[in-house]
């Protein structure tokens, strides 16, 4: 009966096709869009229950639905690979996806492109399911590029504004850089193992000779390149803050909860390669660490509510990478799940604020919303608490705790203390957001109230964000036992430290932004801000760096070569031929006597050949 899981991508795909090709009223479009994902979610939950009741002996089950293409021995199939990791990812995608679909039905109610919006979202769910279900690299790549396409379409959803189109293009092109690296990695895997089947590759990697790890390091780094592009990690993180140009539920679904975690999934799925390549593991950990610190600092100073959340997403995914890099595999997936809950919650709450405040996004235009929007306020408190990982009562605490414990146990002191510093920064910026938006003097009064189908997902996600920490993920058959699960050591001092740090951060935020002058509107303006602040606000000026380093030289080169140097040769040949042509055409005088004379001349020449030769 696990075969039914093949329907998971098909329902949203069907929904996409119906929404694209059938003209329908907005209400019906919402029903189709939400319904298809809802059915998929039910299928996933049913499959998960069945799987847990009777787990297969191998730890996974592969189901083949048909051959995709057949080229000699190369026969990639439409086949899925079901294990607990897949099921967890699918649950997040369809579950959170369904809630966000329902929320969108309320949020997008005034929009002209209602059906188009749900078509894109459905296509995204379909592609993302294919990505996590795929049991071969080719199918995985199909899903990978499919979600990239949907991301592009949805960032540029309001395409009439050229800035949105530019943001969409940026996201597409930047992720394409990572995808290129990943494709090379896939091709290397194929060249090395002569198969694209993931279980076969992983089995071969596990059984392989461990002395020659160079190829694994190379493949690992290339795969990391792909993951870094999709998950907006250093150095390809620049696209994600701009991706906030899309509708807010899209930011919640694609650019916080699901798609950006695809890189984490990729590394977790192919973890044996990284286990064989310690250097690649280190690279993953350090990419995560640097990203989380950089993005955390940027999040501290942003003034746009969505950009704060975007930088915090980058930062939290940095934690996941850090966890992967130190071998705390299941902790990373755990954090992926809790992050999906609380970040979706935060984005949807922010969306509600934006919705009710006439699409204002500057946090200094808000303030004092605590009493006016109580439900949103509570959701936001839960989300921020989870993000800041307030001890014992939030899900974020348990997952981040596991990652940092893993880092501590791995013996990488620098990574661990960097992660702890990141936790402090996280707590500060998340409560800065909360204090500025919901406390203090009101600057704008909300004139709309969120509809019921916007409130219900908030409540459900709030519950998940609180209780998600209690879920014990059955990942022991899929991922190796992490260093954090090593119970031989006594962790009490570290645990206490990790519980105190967020509280310290909250207190710091209170003094800085609630009591101190840093929370005032004047400080939030771009002008007059200290240079470090504006530097952070621009995301460590990575955009300017890339612009100067890559974009401008390339544009200059393209401009220089507008007339194509290579083509000059061919143009020269045509021009020469044309010139010769004109010279010859001068003999075309149109004069009959001239032609006759030429003929006689020719005859004379031929005759002289007869005479003299």
């Amino acid at each position, binding site marked *: 009966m696990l075969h039914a899981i093949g329907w998971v991508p098909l329902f949203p795909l069907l929904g996409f096709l119906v929404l694209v090709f059938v003209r329908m009223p907005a209400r019906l479009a919402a029903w189709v869009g939400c319904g298809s994902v809802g059915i998929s979610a039910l299928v996933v939950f049913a499959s998960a229950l069945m799987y847990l009741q009777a787990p297969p002996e191998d730890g996974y089950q592969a189901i083949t639905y048909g051959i995709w293409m057949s080229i000699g021995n190369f026969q990639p199939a439409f086949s899925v690979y079901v294990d607990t990791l897949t099921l967890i990812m699918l649950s997040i995608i369809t579950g959170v996806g369904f809630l966000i679909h329902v929320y969108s039905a309320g949020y997008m109610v005034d929009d002209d492109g209602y059906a188009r919006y749900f078509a894109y979202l459905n296509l995204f769910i379909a592609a993302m399911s294919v990505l996590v279900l795929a049991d071969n690299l080719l199918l995985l790549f199909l899903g990978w590029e499919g979600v990239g396409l949907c991301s592009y379409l949805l960032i540029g959803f309001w395409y009439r504004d050229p800035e949105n189109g530019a943001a969409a293009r940026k996201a597409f092109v930047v992720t394409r850089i990572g995808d290129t690296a990943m494709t090379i990695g896939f091709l290397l895997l194929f060249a090395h193992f002569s198969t694209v089947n993931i279980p076969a590759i992983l089995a071969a990697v596990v059984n392989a000779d461990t002395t020659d790890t160079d190829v694994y390091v190379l493949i690992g780094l290339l795969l990391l390149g792909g993951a870094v592009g999709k998950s907006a990690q250093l150095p390809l993180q620049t696209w994600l803050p701009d991706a906030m140009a899309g509708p807010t539920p899209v930011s919640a679904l694609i650019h916080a909860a699901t798609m950006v975690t695809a890189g984490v999934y990729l590394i977790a799925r192919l973890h044996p390669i990284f286990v064989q390549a310690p250097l690649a593991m280190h690279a993953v950990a350090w990419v995560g660490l640097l990203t989380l610190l950089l993005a955390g600092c940027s999040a501290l100073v942003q003034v746009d509510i969505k950009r704060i959340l975007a930088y915090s997403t980058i930062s939290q995914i940095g934690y996941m990478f850090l966890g992967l890099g130190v071998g705390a595999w299941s902790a990373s997936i755990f954090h992926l799940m809790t992050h999906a809950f609380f970040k979706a919650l935060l984005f949807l709450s922010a969306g509600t604020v934006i919705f009710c405040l006439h699409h204002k996004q500057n946090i200094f235009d808000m303030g004092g919303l605590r009493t006016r929007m109580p439900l949103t306020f509570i959701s936001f408190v839960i989300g921020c608490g989870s993000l800041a990982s307030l001890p014992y009562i939030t899900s974020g605490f348990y997952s981040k705790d596991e990652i940092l414990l893993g880092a501590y146990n791995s013996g990488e002191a620098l990574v661990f203390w960097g992660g702890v510093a990141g936790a402090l920064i996280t707590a500060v910026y998340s409560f800065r957001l909360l204090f500025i938006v919901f406390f203090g003097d009101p600057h704008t009064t909300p004139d709309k109230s969120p509809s019921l189908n916007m409130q219900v997902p908030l409540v459900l996600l709030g519950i998940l964000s609180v209780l998600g920490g209690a879920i014990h993920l059955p990942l022991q058959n899929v991922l190796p036992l992490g260093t954090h699960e090593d119970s031989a050591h006594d962790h009490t001092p570290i645990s206490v430290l990790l519980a105190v740090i967020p509280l310290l951060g909250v207190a710091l935020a209170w003094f800085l932004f609630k009591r101190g002058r840093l929370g005032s509107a004047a400080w939030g303006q771009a002008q007059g801000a200290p240079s470090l602040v504006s530097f952070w606000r621009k995301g460590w000026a990575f955009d300017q760096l890339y612009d100067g380093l890559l974009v401008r030289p390339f544009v200059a080169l393209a401009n220089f070569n507008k007339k194509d140097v290579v083509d000059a040769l061919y143009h020269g040949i045509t021009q020469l031929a044309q010139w010769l042509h004109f010279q010859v055409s001068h003999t075309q005088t149109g004069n009959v006597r001239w032609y006759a004379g030429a003929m*006689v001349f020719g005859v004379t020449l031929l005759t002289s050949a*007869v005479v003299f030769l």
Partner: protein
Amino acid sequence: MEMFTFYLTSGITLWAVIMVVTRANAVHSLLYLILSSLSMAVIFFQMGAPFAAALEVIVYAGAIMVLFVFVVMMLNLGQAAVEQERLLMTPHIWRGPAILASLLLVELVIILYRQPSVSVPAAVDAKEVGVTLFGPYLLAVELASVLLMAGLIGAYHLGRPLMKKRL
């Protein structure tokens, strides 16, 4: 005696041909052209080709030249045309073609006199021509008839709008 008549007719032909290309009056040229055709016919006769001689007189001097005469009549070229034609014949116009043509002539003569000089021995009568024509050359006859057909249609087509105008 026979040789004398040959050289006399040759001289007349050459003279007539030169006159054709130099006259300013189209009618004069035409008359000289007829003369050249007739003298050519005499030469054919002397060579022992009486059938060719007869055809030369009938088709060339008869049919083709009559066509020319009709056209000249239709064009209705008056004295003005003659004067204009005379103006066009300036000496420098003749220079280039004359040089080119004499070069060609010299070459032809060189080729001609590489062979030993022989005389024409045999006469070929009409019967022999007819037998060969409708024997091995049957296909050529058919092609010639197609050509004549094409000429007929072409001439008809070119002449038609003219006739309409007349009506």
